[in-house]
């Protein structure tokens, strides 16, 4: 009997609860609203009760990372008043896109309960391919861009093939991939070692272009807010019409207002500096698309199912090999996109690309953001929150003039704190019957 009793609001106890362990069998009649805790009362008060219950039960979601981010920002702002300036925040958000894109792919792989260690090297290959194709072979920028991303897709699919069809552990396949693709990148870069990109070229523009018109940032914020409200509102109307539990209007409004505050504040910050960065727009678009794919399509449901139970997925007729290969292909694709973003940032492809702490930062970002290491739990938005934490720490320490050894130690500490919180919440969830 793992039903959560401790967090039951006392007023929700029916007499049966006190007498028998398992009230649903004893209370023979069918009622529309179950008298027990997990069915939320309608109205705003019910929402608050639900929220408190979730917190107590260890269902923290993104709350720890948001609090952590706020603490980090406050600390660095108190150390150096330049931290929370528009310029610095804007630079942080552009700089995080490369690692963030890679972390989005990692979220997919972590949802299966697997790991992809090759993403750093694959990202390097994508940047190098683009540089070689455009600079050395004079290929058109768009074609080279597509081909470079496809290189990542193919590399990922190859890892997926060995994992799914041959049955090699993902850890081993992608470790081999880490070495192989790093070697491949060095090989195609050749003797020169570094290839500079055209600073006005397509890839360079990815991170250097800003929509300087004030209307762009505010317009995007407005469109996002309105679309969010309309989809929530009409979604709830449909649920009401079908007679299934729906969110109260007050909750929809609260969520919309929160989104509006965050998005308009971000827009105001960008407009104080150079405007809305193209890289951030692309990143947000990717997050919206991947989140939609994971949570609203049959494909996404299959990914979650596989992370929950392989056997159950097999019995449900899910093509397990196809899902596994495609997830690794997605991971490779996002690694390539991330690699192009990073090549764009320095307007060059060099031998150091994709090495160093990039792989660890990408995995840490996904985990810090709240994606479970054990599969089946997480959202691609986690990648945004996690990478924001990591890059904020890097920038804050750089502003203080603290060198990278200390940065590594602090980022390591944050990662440890995150997995500790994850482990503790899992325990709390177990005792509360929610894991």
């Amino acid at each position, binding site marked *: 009997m793992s039903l959560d009793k401790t967090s039951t609001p006392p007023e929700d106890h029916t007499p049966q609860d006190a007498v028998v362990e*398992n009230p649903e069998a004893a209370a023979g009649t069918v009622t529309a609203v179950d008298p027990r805790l*997990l069915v939320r009362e309608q109205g705003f008060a019910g929402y608050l009760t639900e929220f408190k219950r979730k917190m107590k039960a260890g269902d923290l979601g993104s709350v720890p990372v948001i609090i952590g981010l706020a603490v980090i920002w406050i600390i660095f702002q108190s150390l150096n008043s330049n931290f929370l300036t528009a310029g610095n925040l804007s630079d942080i958000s552009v700089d995080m896109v490369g690692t963030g894109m890679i972390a989005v792919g990692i979220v997919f792989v972590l949802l299966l309960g697997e790991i992809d260690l090759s993403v750093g090297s694959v990202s390097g290959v994508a940047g190098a391919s683009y540089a070689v194709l455009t600079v050395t072979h004079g290929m058109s920028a768009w074609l080279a861009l597509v081909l470079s991303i496809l290189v990542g897709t193919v590399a990922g699919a190859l890892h997926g093939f060995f994992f799914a069809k041959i049955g090699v552990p993902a850890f081993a396949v992608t470790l081999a991939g880490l070495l192989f693709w790093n070697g491949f990148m060095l090989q195609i870069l050749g003797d020169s070692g570094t290839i500079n990109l055209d600073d006005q070229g397509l890839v360079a523009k990815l991170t250097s272009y800003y929509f300087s018109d004030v209307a762009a940032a505010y317009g995007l914020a407005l469109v996002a807010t309105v679309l969010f409200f309309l989809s929530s509102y009409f979604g709830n109307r449909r649920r009401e019409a079908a007679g299934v539990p729906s969110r109260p209007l007050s909750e929809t409004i609260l969520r919309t207002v929160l989104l509006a505050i965050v998005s308009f504040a971000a827009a105001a910050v960008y407009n104080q500096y150079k405007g809305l960065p193209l890289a951030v727009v692309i990143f947000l678009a990717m997050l919206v698309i991947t989140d939609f794919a994971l949570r609203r399509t049959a494909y996404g*449901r299959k990914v979650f199912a596989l992370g*929950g*139970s392989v056997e159950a997925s097999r019995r449900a007729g899910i093509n397990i090999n196809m899902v596994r290969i495609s997830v690794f292909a997605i991971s490779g694709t996002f690694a390539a996109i991330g690699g192009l973003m990073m090549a764009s940032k320095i307007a060059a492809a060099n031998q150091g690309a994709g090495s160093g702490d990039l792989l660890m930062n990408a995995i840490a970002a996904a985990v810090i953001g709240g994606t479970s290491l054990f599969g089946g739990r997480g959202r691609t938005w986690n990648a945004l929150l996690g990478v924001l934490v990591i890059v904020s720490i890097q920038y804050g320490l750089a502003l203080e003039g603290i060198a990278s050894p200390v940065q590594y130690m602090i980022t390591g500490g944050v990662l440890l704190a995150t997995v500790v919180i994850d482990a503790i919440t899992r325990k709390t969830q177990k005792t509360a019957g929610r894991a």
Partner: protein
Amino acid sequence: MSATPVLALRGVSKRFGAVQALTDVELEVHAGEVVALVGDNGAGKSTLVKTIAGVHPIDEGVIEWEGRAVQVNRPNDAQGLGIATVYQDLALCDNIDVVGNLYLGRELRKRGVLDEVEMERRSRDLLDQLSIRIPSVRIPIASLSGGQRQVVAIARSMLGEPKLVILDEPTAALGVEQTAQVLDLVERLRERGHAVILISHNMADVKAVADKVAVLRLGRNNGVFDVASTSQEEIISAITGATDNAVTRRAARSTKEVQK
């Protein structure tokens, strides 16, 4: 009860290498009837169920479905006929909610997007019809008790409107209260006109819900009994196969001790 059984096995045999797992097994199940399949470990219960479910094709004999002979060579064949099997390990995804698990692998879609509202509505209808009471259809399976998981797994098998439901040890490892829930559900399946094959080791459960008991012993039929008119001892002696065995000796010993 209809004259033609939903499922009839005629002289079914199955070999695995040197092992003759099933020999000339006969079994009939009618609509609206619960047939308990009992037997000791290794009697061939699981093998028999797997032949019906299409996991192991039969070597000899005939499987009749609603009076006509059919080939059941793959699990899909069985599903296509309208046979749903709930195995002992329930195979649910802990991280996905009840609705998601019920519709796993056959999600309803609307313009390519999951139709969560319709799936939730139909899930609630189905659970209501079966009088299954769980706290919410939107909580992950991990939050449910063992008995609740079992009823969700059974409800999942009902989505395809099967004519025959096979339940493999549905009450094993369940508490008293939860066992009662599952047995209630089995009775509701019968009321809805489904044919049910129930594998169980628990004689009390068998006596409680089954109409007929088919006994397997060493891969052969060892009698089909009408539950209402048969005593538990008769069934047990059919399971163990003789009047002289460990169970009867023990019973005899204890009566002697009582007499002393």
